[in-house]
């Protein structure tokens, strides 16, 4: 369970997150919707402990991560998968090496077991043939799949995805959205996705929140949000 209380963040004079309160239940798939620059990615970076808030707390399974030191955060992050908007794969490693990296770093698995595990995960994301390729040889969609494979290879119980469909065509967007949903269900992991892709978000989300200028202006199931009479929500969803 992830609990966010009174989270605020300011960059120079600009208030990017304004008193965010949120509870994400275990196994839930939450989509954070909002316009570009609304603070979605900043919120996700706070959940990962990559940024420190000015005010408020974030508790993951009861532990306040805003008070943790970097070495404690490094330890905690082993249990969380994070998918970057552009993938952020190591460009000096092949896809296989990228996916194997967390296993090499954090497990005592033998080389053969690592190979089997990586092959299995690559198959899950539909990249079983791309293991020997370098990230520069992959398309945008393939890069995101490879990055997703790296994010889930340790069987993390929490998965954060930053704009997984941005820059992809509608078919690939749909495909990656369903892949995230499938992985989330199979691994029973708590998943938080930031997006401005309304259609695909509503297809996969258990819960949705809508952020405007750093504030939560709407929350609930996709159905609740669709039925909302709030003018901004209606405008955003239309």
């Amino acid at each position: 369970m992830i609990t966010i209380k009174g989270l605020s963040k300011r960059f120079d004079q600009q208030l990017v997150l304004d008193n965010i309160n949120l509870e994400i239940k275990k196994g839930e798939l939450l989509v954070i919707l909002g316009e570009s620059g609304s603070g979605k990615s900043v919120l996700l970076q706070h959940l990962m402990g990559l940024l420190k808030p000015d005010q408020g707390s974030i508790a993951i399974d009861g532990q306040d991560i805003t008070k943790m030191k970097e070495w404690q955060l490094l330890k905690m992050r082993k249990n969380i998968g994070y998918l970057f908007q552009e993938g952020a794969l190591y460009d000096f490693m092949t896809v296989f090496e990228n996916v194997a990296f967390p296993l090499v770093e954090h497990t005592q698995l033998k080389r053969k077991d690592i190979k089997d595990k990586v092959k299995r995960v690559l198959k899950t994301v539909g990249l079983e043939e791309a293991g020997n390729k370098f990230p520069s040889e992959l398309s945008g969609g393939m890069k995101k799949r490879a990055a997703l494979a790296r994010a889930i290879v340790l069987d993390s119980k929490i998965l954060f995805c930053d704009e997984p469909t941005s820059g992809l065509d509608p078919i690939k967007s749909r495909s990656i959205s369903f892949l995230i949903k499938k992985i989330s269900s199979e691994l029973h992991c708590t998943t938080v996705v930031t997006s401005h892709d309304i259609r695909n978000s509503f297809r996969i989300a258990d819960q949705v929140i809508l952020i405007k200028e750093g504030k939560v202006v709407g929350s609930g199931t996709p159905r609740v949000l669709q039925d909302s009479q709030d003018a901004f929500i209606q405008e955003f969803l239309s």
Partner: protein
Amino acid sequence: MKTFFSALLNFVVGTGEALFFFGDVCVHLLKGKIRWGEVLKQIYEQGVQSVIIIALTSFATGAVLALQGYVMLNRFGAKENVAQLVALSLVRELSPVFSSFIFSGKAGARIAAELGTMKVSDQVTATRTLGVDPVEFLVVPRILACFMVLPGLVVFSELIGILGGYTIGVFDANIQSSAYIHQTIRAINFVDFFSGFIKTLFFAAIIGWVCCYQGFQTKGGSLGVGQYTTKAVAFSYIMVVLFNAVLTKIILTFWG
């Protein structure tokens, strides 16, 4: 006035951050958190690829020293001393400084550009999200490799430079080969070699530190990578020149 104080504040903060970064690297080294596989890879990338350019410039430097030295020394009837001039100049001063410049322009720029590209494409942050310390994974092996490669390159540069001087001395100035070799060996004592070598260790640490730090500071996409790489090389040059002056004074005070 406000701009001056703002610039001064930026300088102080920047220097503090850079020193803190170096301290972080030292802590990792002291804890023995070293990825030797990565270090070997970096040694190959920084070292082997710098060998040819160092060899060419060192040979030319030795040759030019011998040519100029011969013209001057010949006026005093002391052309045999060309060997001493070449050897001492190279070992005490020229090879450590020139090789550091070349190393900074080649390996240092590479380090800054690599890390800078990784920074702007979120690969450095991705390392943190994967539960791995980016300083341990990306910086420590690069700095350690600098520390191991540059001294070797400087010794290599000294030998090739002396060979360049020998070529001019023997084939152009008609100094006897055995006399040239004898003069060279007689010219260099341990202190001469040591004074150049100890400087090199400092220069290696400076280049590794400055280039890794600038790489990690990079922002602003591909334009930023270019700017910070240029900054890394320029700062390395300046720091090498300044430290060379200070170290030379210290070495001469203690060992003459």
